[in-house]
């Protein structure tokens, strides 16, 4: 403080003014930051969790918060551009009217579509069933695609092209999710790329940055001590194993590699078993649900069959994988990574197989089933709503499972462990909070939400509410019933891992949505795209009708090969440039490190010289 005041005397007036103004700007900024930190959702909760359980688990909850926000924004987007115009016009606000899609030029058979709706007196039980399976009264609401059978909405004199808006909003939400995830990913990735040059930092990182100074609870501190000790021991163990592997004989290598190939074959067999069963079950469920009497209990079970099978596969698969990996004799770190890769693949591929089986059902064109309309119109008069219903059922079922596992498995287990002191129960112990399993669970739910939003515009709202409730459930379950996992996961790498898997899920979600928009003919009996061959046709049609000639030519030119190939080449060149830049930076880092060594050597040399000179 004294030195600062001494400085002030010697500054000219201009500099004084500049300094004062920058100080006041900084003050304003810090006040604004203080205010805005109050607005961050759940800031206090996450801080408490961080204090008790460390940064690994806290990163899971921050990830959950990110998903809640993402889903909420997607919901706002879809709602305001798609649902809101229809609501406005049905109440006649702003002098608005609807122009319904006329089914001209369409074969009559294709347009037969009778959703059961609410006809006359029904049992209360039917309401519940409809709520759970998305059929019945729910099918005709704005929840599903079939409701949006409007061609345009007239607000005073402006014409709001609803089909175009629907399609563009679908593209927009996918693009928004992609952009947001990549933005978050890049931040963490930048650091990783530079540090990747030196894999030898792990010990120093663990020892110097290992203790999490945020921990306030003595129990958590104990846990942290133990986990640090475990981690250090594991690393040392791994190093010794690496030494051992380097000295393996030829015979041993052959044995281990053949064992690994064998186990991978088993894993592939299990995966294909899962996929095949999901395919068969989906086909079975789709066929049966249209035949069966919808008021029977069994029909609810049949409708939920795909969800049940997928959840079972997602539950059993990882257990089997973690059992098998023990025989493969990998390094401990590689073991974890291998198991994670297999689990991720299992979960995302399950969704892929479900979508594929639905698609094969819809475009099942054997025996002239889809003659006039291009898709299997007898079974699926309005196939987009059906797909939307499947996604809706998956989401509801996922939510029910998470709730019931927490309520009916974790809490009784904790009560049992606390009150019953027999050996078997104590050996089972409290369940651990496995971060990777929980994260894969919510990524699975999010992928379903992304796929389903095109077919069911209000699905993100359900997802937001679902994740909101899951946050509190997981938090309560964590505090009361679980002990944190023994195997620690570092905060820096786990954030990247979650985001990377989420990105894979998003890319996976592009495929069904893209295929539905561009390849499968849109259903002629419902929805805003009745008059078009495929949903994507709205865009070229609008361009031809509405845009001036010059713009039309420009847009069509962009889509042609003459533009695409040079564009691709330019992108490749830019990518190579950045890779070369990164290499150059790495080299600079190495050189600077060498300089540091030389510097300290110089210092030693000088000190020796001084000592010598002093002696003389």
């Amino acid at each position: 403080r004294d030195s600062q005041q001494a400085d002030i005397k010697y500054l000219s007036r201009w500099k004084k003014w500049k300094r004062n103004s920058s100080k006041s700007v900084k003050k304003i900024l810090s006040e604004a930051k203080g205010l805005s930190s109050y607005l961050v959702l759940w800031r206090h909760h996450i801080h408490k969790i961080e204090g008790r359980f460390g940064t690994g688990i806290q990163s899971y909850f921050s990830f959950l918060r990110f998903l809640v926000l993402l889903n909420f924004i997607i919901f706002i987007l879809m709602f305001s551009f798609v649902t809101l115009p229809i609501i406005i016009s049905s109440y006649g606000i702003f002098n608005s009217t609807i122009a319904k899609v006329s089914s001209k030029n369409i074969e009559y058979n294709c347009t037969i579509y009778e959703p059961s709706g609410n006809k006359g007196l029904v049992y209360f039980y039917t309401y519940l069933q409809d709520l759970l399976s998305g059929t019945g009264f729910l099918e005709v609401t704005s929840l599903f695609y079939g409701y949006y059978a409007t061609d345009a909405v007239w607000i005073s004199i402006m014409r709001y092209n609803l089909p175009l808006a629907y399609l563009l909003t679908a593209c927009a939400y996918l693009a928004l999710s992609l952009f947001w995830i990549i933005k978050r990913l890049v931040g963490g990735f930048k650091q990783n790329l530079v540090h990747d040059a030196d894999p030898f930092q792990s010990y120093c990182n663990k020892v110097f940055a290992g203790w999490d100074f945020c921990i306030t609870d003595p129990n958590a501190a104990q846990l942290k001590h133990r986990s640090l000790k475990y981690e250090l021991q594991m690393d040392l163990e791994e190093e010794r194993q690496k030494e051992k592997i380097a000295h393996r004989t030829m015979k041993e290598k052959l044995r281990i590699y053949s064992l690994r190939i064998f186990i991978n074959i088993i894993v592939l067999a299990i995966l294909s078993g899962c996929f095949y069963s999901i395919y068969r079950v989906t086909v079975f469920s789709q066929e049966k649900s249209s035949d069966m009497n919808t008021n029977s209990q069994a029909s609810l079970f049949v409708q939920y069959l795909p969800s049940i099978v997928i959840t079972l596969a997602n539950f059993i698969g990882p257990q089997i994988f973690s059992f098998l990996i023990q025989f493969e004799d990998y390094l401990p770190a590689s073991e974890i990574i291998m198991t994670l890769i297999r689990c991720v693949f299992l979960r995302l591929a399950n969704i892929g197989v479900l979508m594929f089986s639905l698609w094969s059902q819809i475009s099942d064109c054997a025996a002239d089933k889809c003659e006039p309309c291009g898709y299997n119109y007898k079974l699926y008069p309005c196939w987009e709503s059906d797909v939307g219903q499947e996604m809706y059922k998956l989401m509801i079922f996922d939510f029910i499972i998470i709730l019931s596992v927490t309520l009916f498995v974790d809490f009784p287990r904790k009560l049992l462990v606390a009150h019953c002191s027999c050996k078997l129960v104590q050996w089972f112990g409290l369940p651990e909070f496995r971060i990777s399993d929980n994260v894969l669970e919510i990524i699975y739910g999010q992928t379903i939400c992304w796929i389903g939003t095109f077919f069911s515009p209000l699905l993100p709202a359900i997802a937001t509410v679902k994740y909101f409730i899951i946050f509190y459930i997981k938090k309560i379950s964590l505090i009361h019933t679980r002990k944190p996992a023994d195997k620690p996961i570092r905060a820096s790498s786990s954030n990247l891992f979650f985001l990377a898997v989420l990105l894979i899920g998003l890319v996976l979600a592009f495929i069904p949505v893209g295929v539905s928009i561009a390849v499968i003919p849109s259903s002629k009996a419902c929805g805003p795209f009745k008059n078009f061959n495929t949903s994507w046709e709205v865009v070229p049609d609008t361009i031809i009708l509405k845009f001036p000639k010059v713009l039309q030519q420009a847009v069509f030119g962009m889509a042609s090969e003459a533009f695409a190939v040079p564009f691709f080449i330019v992108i490749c060149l830019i990518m190579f440039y950045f890779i070369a830049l990164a290499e150059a930076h790495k080299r600079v880092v190495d050189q600077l490190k060498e300089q540091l060594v030389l510097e300290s050597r110089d210092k030693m040399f000088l000190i020796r010289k001084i000592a010598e000179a002093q002696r003389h």
Partner: protein
Amino acid sequence: QELTFLSKQEILLAYKRFSELLPKEERENACSRRVPKSHILTLPELRANPFQHRICHVFSTSESGDDSISFEDFLDMLSVFSDSATSDIKSCYAFRIFDFDDDGTLDRKDLEQLVNCLTGQGEESRLNSMEMEQLIQNILEESDIDKDGTINLSEFQHVVSRSPDFASSFKIVL
């Protein structure tokens, strides 16, 4: 406020917490009082920390060497541990905290004590001597650039700047 990295709210909160540590009669002029070490260690943020004694020692400016903390020392400490402190400052203070014998370098004994602090108090939670040897060997291999068997401040800062977890773990928020 210009001297620290803390915001106005944080300083006020720190003042409140600091005055709670003093006995009732002395709360009036908390700014000039010193709190003995035993009281500081009752703060929840420091209670579970294995480096509590070192932290008190490093931040205390008391001439009598009893490691008591005045309000300015307290603010100093919170400022270094806050989110907005630069990593230079953090690594400088971390070096001082880890330097158990206060000789300006981290030698093998310092590293051994550091690892023991990390793995916990008590005999059964320490690494055995073979593992300790291997670990210290590895650490020195990674960070000791001039190969003199000790880690000085610039080597430490170099190592820490490339450590991705340092910024997020070396912080205390009230």
